[in-house]
């Protein structure tokens, strides 16, 4: 039983939400300032970047019920868009993000169009082919992409002079990157929140749970699916751009099929049907791919063939299975259950619902069912 009960929309509830929000924001803002190490700042920056990709994947998988094993390609598309515009055309970093969005929206819609005609599983085979195809395409056009050698930008993103972080300390530039990325990511979370709460978001849920009933309720199922796919790809594209802002170097191996699968692992671990789940998901993702990998590097199982990557693979597989079995709602579901033990938020009727009261003129002069 919860220790406190709060009514939804009441003053206490609003204070709680604002309080939690401000606390979270303060934490995120102060975080790089209290961490002394460049590597750690870079790690949390990566978490923020990947959370956007996972968020996008969640919109598609968790909210619209479509599976994609091809999101590595969209992350890569965003990343390459940014690096090409920055390195070859001297665009400022942040200005490339809208271009990434546009490119990935179109690419996502194109991949999603088969969804018009086909059911879930076929789409999964299409997306897995997309993921496998992307590195091949990158190598196909080396003049744009640098081919197998990868592509670099000579200059990192720099903050304007008025910005409060001193760029001449070792932690200065990564902190700048962190803040820029954090702002963009916050915007993406806001957008995702808006989508899920809107009419379109409800339509996505309806399509996920029962497509036929959705169609019967006037929802254009195919359009909704393509929209979800395109938007989801655009989120992945933004994540790609952010990753390039964090580290201005890309190569084909950075965006392979494994990235797609790890994004799914992270999504399931975090909680696929919740916006906030992308954050624990991204933490799982980065912890698996950096910390665990580093730790496993030092292990020496099976005589002299230590490879962090393998341990990570096995662990991720096991983790994924464990989550699907034990906590299908992901970490975020667990956290919510915990929160409910402390504070229970009781839903309230919507405001002003009486205005829309559906009532007829009362008629008592007529028997209800005419007896036969």
């Amino acid at each position: 039983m919860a220790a406190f009960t709060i009514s939804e929309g009441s003053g206490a509830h609003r204070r709680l939400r604002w309080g939690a929000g401000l606390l979270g924001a303060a934490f995120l803002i102060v975080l790089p300032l209290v961490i002394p190490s460049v590597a750690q700042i870079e790690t949390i920056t990566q978490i923020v970047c990947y959370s956007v990709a996972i968020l996008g994947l969640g919109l598609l998988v968790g909210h619209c019920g479509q599976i994609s094993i091809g999101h590595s390609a969209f992350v890569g598309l965003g990343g390459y868009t940014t690096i090409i515009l920055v390195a070859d055309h001297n665009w400022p970093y942040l200005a490339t993000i809208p271009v990434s969005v546009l490119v990935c929206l179109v690419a996502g819609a194109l991949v999603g169009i088969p969804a018009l005609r086909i059911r879930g599983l076929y789409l999964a085979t299409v997306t897995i082919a997309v993921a496998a195809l992307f590195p091949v395409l990158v190598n196909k056009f080396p003049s744009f992409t640098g081919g197998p050698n990868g592509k670099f930008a000579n200059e990192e993103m720099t903050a304007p002079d008025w910005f409060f972080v001193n760029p001449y300390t070792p932690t200065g530039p990564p902190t700048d990157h962190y803040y820029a990325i954090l702002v963009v990511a916050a915007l993406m979370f806001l957008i995702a929140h808006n989508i899920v709460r809107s009419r379109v978001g409800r339509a996505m849920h309806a399509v996920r749970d029962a497509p036929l009933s959705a169609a019967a309720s006037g929802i254009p199922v195919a359009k909704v699916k393509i929209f979800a796919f395109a938007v989801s790809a655009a989120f992945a594209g933004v994540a790609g751009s952010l990753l390039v802002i964090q580290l201005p170097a890309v190569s084909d191996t950075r965006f392979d099929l494994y990235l797609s699968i790890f994004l799914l692992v992270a999504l399931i671990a975090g909680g696929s049907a919740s916006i906030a789940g992308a954050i624990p998901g991204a933490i799982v993702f980065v912890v698996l791919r950096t910390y665990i990998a580093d730790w496993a590097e030092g292990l020496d199982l099976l005589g002299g063939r230590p490879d962090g990557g393998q341990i990570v693979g096995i662990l991720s597989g096991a983790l994924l299975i464990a989550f699907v079995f034990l906590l299908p709602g992901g970490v975020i579901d667990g956290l919510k259950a915990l929160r409910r033990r402390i504070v229970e938020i009781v839903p309230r009727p919507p405001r002003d619902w009486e205005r829309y009261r559906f009532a007829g003129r009362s008629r008592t002069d007529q028997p209800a069912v005419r007896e036969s």
Partner: protein
Amino acid sequence: MSDLLRIEGLVVQFGGVTALDGVSFSVREGQICALIGPNGAGKTTAFNAISRLVRPADGQIRFAEHDLLGLEAADLSGLGIARTFQNLALWPGMTVLENVMVGRYARGRVGFAASLLGRPARVEDREVRARAYAMLDYFGIADVAHRDCEGLPFGTLKRVELARALVAQPRLLLLDEPAGGLAHGDVRELGETLMKLRDDHDMTLLLVEHHMQFVMGISDYVVALDLGRNLVAGNPAELRDSPELVEAYLGAPV
């Protein structure tokens, strides 16, 4: 009063089996029209054809001035047609309130682009939420508004489905076995509700139903089908003693 829905020569085939074989009837504005017939007569198929879930091989379906066969299932809600399903077609993972809110989708104006922005979506969301809640209140089930559909009793779910159909404020309401699975008291109450919808909210109702007493009690016009064809049609008083109808139900001349 004019014909709101007009169906002519409807033919539906599943594989090699003809489920509807030239069914015709029309529903006048403001009527409660019942489609009856033994199981397998093609009533639900006719419904699914009207709501564009199955594709007829032949025939015409006109709603007001629209040719429904030229439209998609998703377009109907916008024209003012809503329906319920025999076996319920709700979304188990969503709350009752959200289920009802989806019913209003076609009347919403926030498009894909606007949904990104928040403000317009939120204004609309607030209104739809209130309307949906009011609808639940009308059916006396506002207390379960925030619960997931999964696990609620059948009678409640039937009301949720009715609320979802009504929240779109349709001109024509299609009800597939609204009384199916309800206890006697609930059936009576449902009859009152449906007549109120016709009388007070200017709705036209087309329903498929087995419960004879219910049908005869509330309908203005009854169309009986048998084996995919029109059997008889008329007002309840005319039909009550129709030998064709008795035979169709009993499978034997009486």
